[in-house]
């Protein structure tokens, strides 16, 4: 309500205007306070995440001497790649990085290939037990791998699949699949079914409609889901330690050597664990936001 209308409605204009102004000041104050508290929380969360990352970066690009010293520097001075080089030259690091890469790529491909039709089915078809399956997928997500550790190792040994890169990739596929399916399903749910129907009317079979209309529209979301799979696999350490001995992935390798090595190794290792995830998440953050928006629906 503007002051003019208030004044025209009320007989004595002056005190009313003051009251209105006071009320407006209070509202403004409340608004400012609310914003300030939101910002404070956001800044706290950001610092909570950013400070360790910054520390890792600083250490990774400081000289090994600086890394070992105390108190530690807060920025790299002098800037040096010695620590990184030292880490890379450590026995097993390059091989385990390569292993990590192979495992993550296989997991990404398999997981996406399975999750695409599964997610599509959940998004589009009303079939008996659909909700049960959805719930089942979610609950698998909540199931701790630790419980499965011993039986899994036994099964893998029996099948002769123990200590193989591909068997770890299979394991990671299984671990990431629930997340991937749910994310991809939500991508498909976000696309109006009418697009497919229109494609069908204009001469497509169901499959053609999927290829020509649904898939191009879903590709960004699917790519985001695939990258998520990659990051999950890249960072996964429990199954990696459990299932491999000689073919270790990077996190397994680092964890294995953790107590035997000094700070430069740890920080450089941390850096290598962090960077791929950060790069990927940087590229897909737009899609992640929109997907979570849909998941919340």
């Amino acid at each position: 309500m503007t002051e003019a209308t208030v004044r025209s409605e009320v007989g004595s204009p002056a005190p009313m205007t003051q009251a209105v102004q006071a009320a407006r000041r209070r509202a403004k104050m409340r608004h400012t306070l609310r914003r300030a508290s939101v910002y404070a929380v956001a800044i706290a969360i950001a610092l909570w995440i950013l400070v360790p990352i910054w520390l890792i970066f600083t250490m990774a690009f400081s000289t090994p001497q600086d890394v070992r010293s105390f108190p530690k520097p807060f920025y790299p001075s002098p800037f040096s790649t010695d620590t990184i080089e030292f880490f890379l030259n450590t026995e097993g690091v390059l091989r385990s990085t390569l292993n990590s890469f192979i495992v993550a790529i296989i997991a990404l491909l398999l997981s996406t290939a399975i999750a695409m039709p599964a997610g599509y089915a959940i998004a589009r078809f009303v079939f008996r037990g659909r909700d049960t399956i959805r719930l089942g997928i979610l609950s698998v997500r909540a199931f701790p791998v630790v419980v499965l550790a011993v039986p899994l190792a036994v099964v893998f040994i029996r099948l002769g699949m123990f200590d193989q890169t591909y068997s770890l990739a299979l394991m990671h596929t299984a671990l990431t699949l629930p997340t991937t399916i749910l994310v991809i399903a939500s991508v498909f749910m976000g696309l109006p079914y009418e697009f497919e129907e229109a494609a069908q009317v204009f001469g497509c079979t169901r499959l053609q409609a999927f290829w020509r209309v649904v898939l191009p529209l879903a590709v960004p979301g699917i790519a985001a889901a695939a990258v998520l799979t990659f990051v999950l696999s890249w960072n996964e350490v429990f199954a990696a330690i459990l299932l491999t001995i000689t073919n270790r992935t990077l996190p397994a390798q680092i964890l294995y050597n953790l107590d035997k090595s000094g700070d430069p190794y740890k920080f450089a290792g941390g850096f290598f664990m962090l960077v791929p995830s950060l790069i990927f998440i940087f590229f897909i953050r737009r899609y992640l936001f929109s997907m979570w928006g849909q998941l919340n629906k």
Partner: protein
Amino acid sequence: MAEIIVEHAVKKFGKFVAIDDVSLTVDDKEFVVLLGPSGCGKTTLLRAIAGLGMVNEGRVLIGGRDVTYLQPKERNVSMVFQNYAIFPHMTVFDNIAFGLKMRKTPRDVLQERVETAARLLHIEDMLDRRPGTMSGGQRQRIAVARAIAYDAQALLMDEPLSNLDALLRLEMRAELKALLGRLGATTIYVTHDQIEALSMGDRIAVMRKGQIVQVDTPTRVYDLPVDHFVGSFIGNPPMNFMRASVQKHDGALQARVGDLYITPPDYMLAALRPYEGKDIYIGIRAENTEVLSQPGAGALPVTVEVVEPLGAMNLLTILIEDNVLKVSTHPDFPVVAGGQVWLLFPEAKIRWMDRDTGRAITPELEQVVA
């Protein structure tokens, strides 16, 4: 050749019956308009014909072929979707060309057809753009262009002009009608726009609650509604209905409205006889009521409640007992709100309706029953 026949179609969503035993025949090259209130099942019927959402019962035939169990692709129909459903990841050109590409149409033919369709809908400047940022009206025109370019046996259009401004709609209506006439496509056209329905349709099918109530030429639907619903749904303003009681007066069967006695025409007498002593509805169109500025023989004096100048005519609102009446006059007719006029109801223009069933009381029907 490509007539569309729907036979006793039933479509249910769970327990809800969206299409309730609908039968409709659209002749080859005919233009049928589907008209009905929101939620009466127009879209559902179009979709059933297109093969999107199969009917639970009944059959659909297109061009003499039973397509009830065929995929949309195999039915050779084209459709304008109510929500457009144009593909956001393709340019306007590719959208319009989509169906033709699927059919592997030669490049030059395709180019030509797309351009013709785009020109007709005034979107030829946008062919290279993507529809993402376009307005509703622009998207709708792309959807219409896509449907026209496809050149199918049957064209199903679900409110194709609903989102255009009045002027563009007026122009598009005429051009679309001319083009469809040239193409000779069998068309079912859903609209909410009365004028569109009356001016474009070879026939109008009026739907209500999942059923087709009347299929007739626009003039017959307008003039001879089969029931109270059609009369009060078609036309702007809708048909006036007044409660009347049928009784003997001066030795003849007459319908009394207020203080006015209306003598039914001779051909109605037999049909009205069973209603003696009962109430019926009499319906009359606004423009069929004669309005006099002076007393005349058999004219009913009434007070004018509201005068609405509409440009080409003035619309008067009049109360006769508890019946609200809309009548139209020439814009020069001298009357103001609160003034008095005299009304004449030409008997031949009166439609007689059963009050309980709402159905028209017609001489033919009564004779068939008798």
